[in-house]
């Protein structure tokens, strides 16, 4: 490999594309050549960087300086100042407002270890980083039962929401005799504030594919589908390209590595419905139906897609698998806690200095995640609340900042971890407003199948709208709670069971705000 003095990582995402990143990269390279630095400086177009800046964003390594909103007009200055003279251009730097310098813990990363480091569109770079070694091992040196046992031993839990142990799930499907089995990857990601799966797929599509392959081998599936939301155009393009590359390299297809094992991976897209993230609704959608959930049992693992046994896993869940197979369960258990092993990918949003993407050991406190990885509060703002887990999540107050972020610890706040969204609110923002927006979301996304959710979501929205306008009473607030509770107990799927979480946590932690805004 060639040795470069510096790497410039250019994050390629929708926002960057909108800002004309293609032209930008060409100009940047020209300028670097003009400056005579072409041999010293490597420009790398990559997936998501560790932070969400506006427009075109760059990370310059090894000094780890982050720039956002860089324009073509800035290129000359950037090359002159930073690359030639070594003086960062402060006016373009992202973290000038941060209280803490965020951590870039590459050594503690599993899922994102390649993200922002390698070119996601190149299978060679993935292979160069040790990619597909786990697949080869799983296919040639392990029996399906060994794979299932290894994943079981790793303690890996599903990252799609409920935290169900992945190995256990596989172990239900693996022994079934069926003429066909499927792996379905849940990449529908609709939870507001959540887009870690998008970033995983954009940043390292091959890692997901490798996870899928191992799962398919473990359960005996010859076909896998990635169900991905229609809006994720870049993911779709990258995954399609990655699948093609795999076929070209004989990593997918018939008789892979002469093992006698066949596997293909297809991409299926959604058309805009949050409920299709629910695994049975997703299967309905895959079959070309309305996305109404199905009753369980039978579970998809027994009767799923077209009534065949189907393992449905989240993107992040599967992206953990290559590491486990390659390094073993024991190594994996070095991460996280005993009950919740491994790491978790979060998207930190809102009023933090460094909104961004991070991967942290399970069990880190919310405070740690916000302060160390989000750079703390934005200068001049005070922490008020965090919406953890998206619309189906809970609103935590500053008294709960020390909660451990894992499936078990969050239970004490009836909260869920799965989606990995952390939306931080400052002291000026209204909890009632936030709740209004959440309940509007549920009203819009109820599939309408079952009465409690279909009608309940409308009442919740009407009530919170009334309260928000100052026209409600505390009786209305109580009614809000009663309806949401009935929905929790009687709704057909987890969507209708969810609004109680935001409502109850808002009332528990911020009741004063409701008292203040309601009529006496």
């Amino acid at each position: 490999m060639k040795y470069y003095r510096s790497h410039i990582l250019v994050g390629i995402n929708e926002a960057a594309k909108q800002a004309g990143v293609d032209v930008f990269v060409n100009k940047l390279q020209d300028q670097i050549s003009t400056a005579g630095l072409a041999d010293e400086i490597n420009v790398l177009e990559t997936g998501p960087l560790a932070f969400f800046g506006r427009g075109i964003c760059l990370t310059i390594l090894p000094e780890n300086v982050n720039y956002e909103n860089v324009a073509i007009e800035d290129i000359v200055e950037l090359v002159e100042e930073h690359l030639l003279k070594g003086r960062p251009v402060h006016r373009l730097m992202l973290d000038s407002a941060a209280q803490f310098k965020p951590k870039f813990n590459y050594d503690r990363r599993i899922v994102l270890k390649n993200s922002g480091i390698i070119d996601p569109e190149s299978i060679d770079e993935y292979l160069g980083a040790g990619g597909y070694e786990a697949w080869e091992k799983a296919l040639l040196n392990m029996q399906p039962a060994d794979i299932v046992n290894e994943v079981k031993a790793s303690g890996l839990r599903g990252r799609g929401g409920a935290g169900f142990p992945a190995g256990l799930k596989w172990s239900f499907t693996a022994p079934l005799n069926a003429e066909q089995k499927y792996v379905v990857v849940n990449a529908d990601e609709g939870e507001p504030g959540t887009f870690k799966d998008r970033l995983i797929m954009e940043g390292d599509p091959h890692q997901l594919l490798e996870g899928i392959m191992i799962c398919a081998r473990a359960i005996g599936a010859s076909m896998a589908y990635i169900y991905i939301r229609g809006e994720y155009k870049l993911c779709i393009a990258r995954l399609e390209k990655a699948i093609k590359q795999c076929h070209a390299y004989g990593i997918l297809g018939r008789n892979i590595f002469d093992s006698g094992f066949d596997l293909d991976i297809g991409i299926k897209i959604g058309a805009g419905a949050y409920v299709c993230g629910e695994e049975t609704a997703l299967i309905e959608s895959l079959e070309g139906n309305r996305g109404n959930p199905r009753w369980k049992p039978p579970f998809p693992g027994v009767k799923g897609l077209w009534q065949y046994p189907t393992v449905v896993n989240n993107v992040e869940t599967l992206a953990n698998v290559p590491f486990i197979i390659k390094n073993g369960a024991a190594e994996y258990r070095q991460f996280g806690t005993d009950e919740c092993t491994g790491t978790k990918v979060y998207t930190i949003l809102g009023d933090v200095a460094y909104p961004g993407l991070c991967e942290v050991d399970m069990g880190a406190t919310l405070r740690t995640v916000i302060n160390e990885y989000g750079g703390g509060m934005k200068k001049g703002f005070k922490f008020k609340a965090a919406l953890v887990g998206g619309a189906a999540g809970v609103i935590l107050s500053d008294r709960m900042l020390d909660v451990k972020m894992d499936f078990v610890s969050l239970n004490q706040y009836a909260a869920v971890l799965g989606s990995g969204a952390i939306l931080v609110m400052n002291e000026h923002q209204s909890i009632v407003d936030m709740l209004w927006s959440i309940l509007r979301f549920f009203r819009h996304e109820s599939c309408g199948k079952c009465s409690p959710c279909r009608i309940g979501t409308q009442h919740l929205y009407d009530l919170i709208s009334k309260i928000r306008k100052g026209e409600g009473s505390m009786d209305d607030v109580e009614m809000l709670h009663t309806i949401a509770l009935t929905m929790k107990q009687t709704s057909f799927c987890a969507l209708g069971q969810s609004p109680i979480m935001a409502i109850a946590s808002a009332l528990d932690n911020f009741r004063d705000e409701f008292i203040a805004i309601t009529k006496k």
Partner: protein
Amino acid sequence: MIKKVNIWLDGKHLEVPETMTIIEAADKYNVNIPRLCYHPDLPPTANCGVCVVEVAGNPTPKRACCTPVAEGMKIVTNSKLLRSYRKTLVEMILSHHDVVCPTCSANNKCELQTLANNMGVDPDTLPNIMHKAPIDATSPSIVRDVNKCIACGRCVTVCNDVQTVYALTFSDRGIESQITSAFGSGMANSACVNCGQCTVYCPTGALRENSDIDAVWDAVLDPLKHVIVQEAPAIRVSLAEEFGMELGTITVKKMYAALRKIGFDAVMDTNFTADLTILEEGTECVNKLKSGSKRPLITSCSPGWIKFMETYYPDLADCVSTAKSPMSMFGVLSKTYYAQEQNIDPANIVSVAIMPCIAKKFEARRPEMRDSGFQDTDYVLTTRELLRMIKEAGIDLKYVKEEDADETMSFYTGAGTIFGTTGGVMEAAIRSAYTLVTGEELEEIDITAVRGLEGVKEATIPVPGFGDLHVAVAHGLSNARLVMDRIREGLNTTGESPWHFVEIMACPGGCVGGGGQPYGNNMAMRARRGEGLYHEDRNLPIRKSHHNPEIKRIYERFLGEPNSPLAHRLLHTHYFKRSVNNGQVIEEATHKHH
């Protein structure tokens, strides 16, 4: 053998088959679990949430209608919490509902109303959030009032899975979701075949017949009109249950009396033309058999089936008997033969039919059904509408004194009466066709192979001089599909149909389970009604259509002989090809050549 499991239902230990759901187990042991969307004839949609019960070991309640029992399961069906959830739930349902019970067609029959009453629910707890949508009354048969729909999904299951018509779907989502035909076209512009099964299974007043009660009252009260009435076979066995008499009791003479009390000028009987149908259809069948045609003859008196055939199997239209239904034969004769016999100007005759069927409303308005020079049948009332009229007139059928029908067009045989149940037309036809072919009388006339509620029934009857007669009977349109697909396949491959003669009725159970029958019925009740008809058949003095003296008389005095030119002109019809998208006529499928 199905394995049994031990469960504890409200503390009571039971052993039940492992294939049961909790609600099935509870129903079997008379433990009442409230429910709205569940119906024992249909797979659960599990939409309403009212049936929730506590199952030990689960943090949230489970739906009883779709949760299978399991070994060791401990179930609590009633608790303070469950009651409060259910109550809030019913309040929520009522808050998105146009609550106008007194004027609702489902009043007193409505499962939602009953549940709300039983639970003591206050409809004013929550603000009503119903945005009233227009009522769809485009179809002559069916009215759809989404303001009364609770989205239980039964109608969609029935229409799509039981009847395979695919006229209804859920559209949109969330609070906006509703049942509809595609693009909100209205039922008249959909594939709906008017079988009315959705109206029977709808727990509320959201789907009902397009009512003709007012028009019939107007006619009855108009002194210038001569209003005559016919009643289909299935009616006589479906009234008793509404007046506290045993289900399946035959109340034919009380029915005649009630109709006179309502004010009809002449009370006759569709069973008479059912016998006539046997002669027309039977003759057609025998001619076909004798000609050596390999195409089967399929019965034609179910208008739901006829529209279905025109929509999905127009290529086989020439296999379907050209005989009109008994109702339409009656209609055309009422304004020709009857008018002539009684010396009444047919223009003053109002011909009313009481049918178990809502498709008959559509049939009556088909342009072909005007061979008398007028609309042959003016109004069709369903069993439900008749019941409403009887109640409106303040009549209690239980205490009405029996009366006979008028003399003309009312005498009937056992063959005519069993038309009302699946297999009945086939059985009646065989009784006469046998004689038409062999010239001899069939001795064993109870043809049990075609009785009962199996979806497709087959039988082989040895007919001397002809050989084996292969017949099939299907009821419910998904079963009709099975039969029609086999016929189509047979004709397209070997050129032969598996059967010579086929009976198809649109409604599961036949007309006793018709779309106009009293609410709250299920397959078990349909079977009881069918048995009622077989019971009447056994007790009638004459049990074969060709022995009906009135039938002989009408041929002698008016029609000539079966399939005569006049019979063809008045009693036969032809068919069209219809669009699967909107049910509209595309072109003729068979033609009428005169």
